[in-house]
């Protein structure tokens, strides 16, 4: 291979590399390796003069391979590929050697041996570089439309931003109304805005927007295709009401004799068997709950059918499916409350007067079960002593390890509700730490610290017991005063942990998105790319990426929408360079590769009388699973061919003997 002309560039990275090993010695070593025409070291190879150095050498010496021994390719591979591109070389003729993360950062205690390792890695790269070949990528057009999954505040904000940018949006919501958890709240911290007053105008805006189609009471059941051109199958669950005919008058709801616990009130009140999710529902269309409807359970009644003035009731309705074609997907399915009955010592679900924070929101809401008067569930009496337990299930190895990120501020907000409604009530905040981190939160905290009859007790109750009269007694050790306090409370509010919604597990498999230890969606980078995923074209908005309060959710959703807009407005997607490709002469068409491919990118096709594997360029993500599985070596991967890898391994092993 006399035509291989390699340039080796060893970076000092200031003291990061140069402080441990001597880059000049590595350079000197590299200069003597076969095919190496020029070898240089430089303080900061990624800097403008460093890049120019390489650029000039490529021109002067006619280099056709470039090796940069510096940091991780995750850091600067694109930088140096840019250098190659500028000189007209194919960017995949570059080979990075990571002598920072893999050498100097981890072996700084043995500099001499670190230097040897650096040399060996450079020699391996030189051996490999001879086998590098040019790689070209393909471009495919994107469909300028987006799917937003979840119609809470995150989905609403993302939909509006996308739609206002001229993109067609399909908003899929599992419940019959958009609005999500925010619609259930009475007020929002720290400004104490009425939650519905700031949310419902946005809900109406979504429903009226010409670029947004809402699929309520629906679920995403299948996703195929790839970034820029997803095919999405949406299931429209049977509502037993023809929503096109229905005017939302509510006569059916009024006359229905069926009863069931009202989900929107967290089970604290009852609704009818045909019902609106809540008064301000968007779309304002009722749904029949077949589990509680007398017609479906006992074959009697049909009152709703009789009273409906437009004949919209349809008991024979079946689930329907629609196929959508979108370029990008924004996941905004939010969170769910952790099942607090699993914290057995607090008696939630067993003791009526132990309620969750969200139930307390309903108790405090003007449209809630008590019309906004704070009354305890067991006997409807006004509670005079209320305990608020923070971190109920959060920051707990036995339940959810992470912070819920809303509980502290919500507890303070609940103090406001209580003192506003029952001025002589005593409130005990049982906290471990008050984390008032958001804008205006510390001021909000300060406001309640001085409030009369509001006691901040730094401690956590361990066991809550119920008295015959429904009140609750517990001991809590206050570590501020060093006293064990015995409390008799009329009501206990648990600011509970949160977790990803149940449907996330199946949805994330459709979208091929990983999850973090808490089960939430794994972002591409926790700091720099928190709203993108490893699946191209799939973006994250709001609490599905991790617990968030409303301000953070809205900011995150707007960012996700902006990222999706950027992705769609670019107009094309590029295939990955690390594509798998088939040597059709060797391939036996066994199909193992197709069965292991996580992206459905491989099909077995008939070609000239034999079966061969075919890689779909647009679906292949270059994961290499098929390459590792192929029994004959017919499946290879760009930039990681057997020849390239083996030459590297042979060099590292000191040659074949």
């Amino acid at each position, binding site marked *: 291979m006399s035509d291989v002309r390699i340039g080796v560039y060893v970076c000092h990275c200031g003291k990061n590399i140069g402080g441990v090993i001597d880059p000049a010695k590595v350079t000197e070593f590299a200069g003597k390796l076969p095919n190496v025409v020029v070898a240089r070291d430089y303080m900061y190879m990624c800097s403008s003069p460093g890049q120019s150095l390489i650029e000039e050498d490529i021109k002067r010496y006619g280099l056709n391979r470039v090796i940069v021994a510096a940091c991780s390719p995750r850091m600067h591979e694109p930088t140096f590929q840019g250098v190659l591109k500028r000189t007209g070389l194919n960017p995949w003729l570059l080979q990075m050697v990571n002598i920072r993360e893999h050498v100097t950062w981890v072996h700084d205690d043995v500099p001499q041996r670190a230097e040897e390792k650096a040399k060996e890695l450079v020699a391996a790269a030189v051996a490999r570089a001879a086998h590098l070949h040019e790689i070209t990528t393909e471009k495919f057009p994107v469909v300028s439309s987006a799917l937003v999954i979840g119609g809470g505040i995150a989905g609403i904000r993302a939909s509006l931003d996308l739609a206002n940018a001229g993109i067609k949006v399909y908003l899929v919501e599992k419940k019959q109304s958009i609005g999500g958890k925010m619609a259930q709240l009475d007020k929002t911290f720290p400004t104490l805005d009425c939650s519905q007053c700031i949310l419902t105008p946005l809900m109406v805006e979504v429903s009226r927007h010409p670029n947004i189609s809402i699929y309520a009471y629906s679920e995403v059941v299948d996703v195929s295709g790839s970034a820029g051109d997803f095919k999405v199958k949406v299931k429209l669950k049977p509502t037993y009401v023809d929503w096109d005919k229905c005017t939302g008058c509510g006569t059916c709801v009024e006359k229905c004799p069926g009863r069931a616990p009202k989900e929107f009130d967290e089970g604290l009140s009852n609704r009818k068997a045909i019902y609106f999710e809540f008064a301000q529902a968007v779309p304002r269309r009722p749904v029949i709950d077949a589990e509680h409807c007398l017609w479906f359970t006992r074959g009697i009644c049909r009152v709703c059918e009789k009273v409906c003035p437009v004949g919209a009731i349809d008991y024979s309705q079946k689930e329907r499916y629609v196929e959508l074609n979108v370029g990008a997907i924004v996941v905004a399915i939010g969170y769910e409350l952790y099942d607090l009955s699993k914290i057995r010592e607090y008696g939630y679900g067993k003791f009526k007067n132990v309620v969750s924070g969200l139930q307390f929101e309903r108790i405090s809401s003007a449209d809630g079960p008590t019309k906004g008067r704070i009354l305890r569930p067991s006997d409807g009496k006004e509670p005079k002593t209320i305990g608020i337990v923070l971190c109920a299930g959060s*920051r707990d190895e036995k339940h959810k390890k992470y912070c819920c990120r809303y509980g502290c501020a919500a507890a303070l907000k609940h103090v406001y509700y209580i003192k506003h409604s029952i001025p002589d009530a005593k409130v005990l905040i049982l906290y471990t730490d008050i984390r008032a981190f958001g804008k205006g939160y510390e001021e909000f905290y300060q406001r309640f610290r001085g409030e009369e009859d509001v006691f901040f007790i730094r*401690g956590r109750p361990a066991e809550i017991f119920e008295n015959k009269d429904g009140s609750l007694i517990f*001991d809590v*050790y206050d570590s501020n005063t060093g006293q*064990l306090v015995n409390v008799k409370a009329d009501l206990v509010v648990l600011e509970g942990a949160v977790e990803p919604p149940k449907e996330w597990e199946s949805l994330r498999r459709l979208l091929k998105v990983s999850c973090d230890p808490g089960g939430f969606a794994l972002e591409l980078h926790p700091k720099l790319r928190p709203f993108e995923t490893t699946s191209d074209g799939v973006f994250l908005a709001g609490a599905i990426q991790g617990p968030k309060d409303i301000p953070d959710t809205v900011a995150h959703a707007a960012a996700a929408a902006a990222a999706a807009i950027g992705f769609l407005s670019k107009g094309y997607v590029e295939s990955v360079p690390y594509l798998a490709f088939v040597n059709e002469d060797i391939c036996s068409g066994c199909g193992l590769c197709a069965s292991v491919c996580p992206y459905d990118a491989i099909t077995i096709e008939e070609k000239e009388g034999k079966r061969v594997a075919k890689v779909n360029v647009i679906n292949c993500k270059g994961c290499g699973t098929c390459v590792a599985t192929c029994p004959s070596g017919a499946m290879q991967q760009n930039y990681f061919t057997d020849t390239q890898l083996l030459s590297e391994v042979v060099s590292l092993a000191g040659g074949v003997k």
Partner: protein
Amino acid sequence: MVVLTGGSEVVALEVRLLDSRVLREVKELVRPHSPQHCYQCAKCTSACTATKVIPDYKPHLIVALTRLGLIKNLLDSGIIWACTECWKCSEYCPQDVAPVEVVIALKNLSIAMGYKPPEDLKMMAKNVVELGYISPPIEVLSKEFEMYGRNALALPELVKPYTHEGTINNLKKLLGGVYE
């Protein structure tokens, strides 16, 4: 009772660091539990059976002091022997610290360091060897103020445990010289 925190006494940082060896030993003994993860929510002390009787016994404080290596006062006071080992603290601890494990580790360490165990422990050890139980059977008073013994409950007579010189010696060794 003994003041465990050192009261108003100002502790120099060096004193804390001097005892860091103890923390390493405790950490080793309580594995896989982790005293260093304690965030002092004091849920253990809220639950503690012993605290209600002996207010100076505070599991979260024992973990805090141990974590800092400040165990001299702690062992001098003998407060660790107040633990009834009901394991509620371990059950409720949100950080899987298991304060009872820390206390047990400290008990073992204190014997190893030459601290004298409380008299009751000696009695218990003696009972184990002679009766086969930690405490001898006693008669109890019912809610109706009637005494109940084993006879009244139709329980069989206690059988004297099998004793062997070697077994006793091994037990004595395990109990670290407590049984003398």
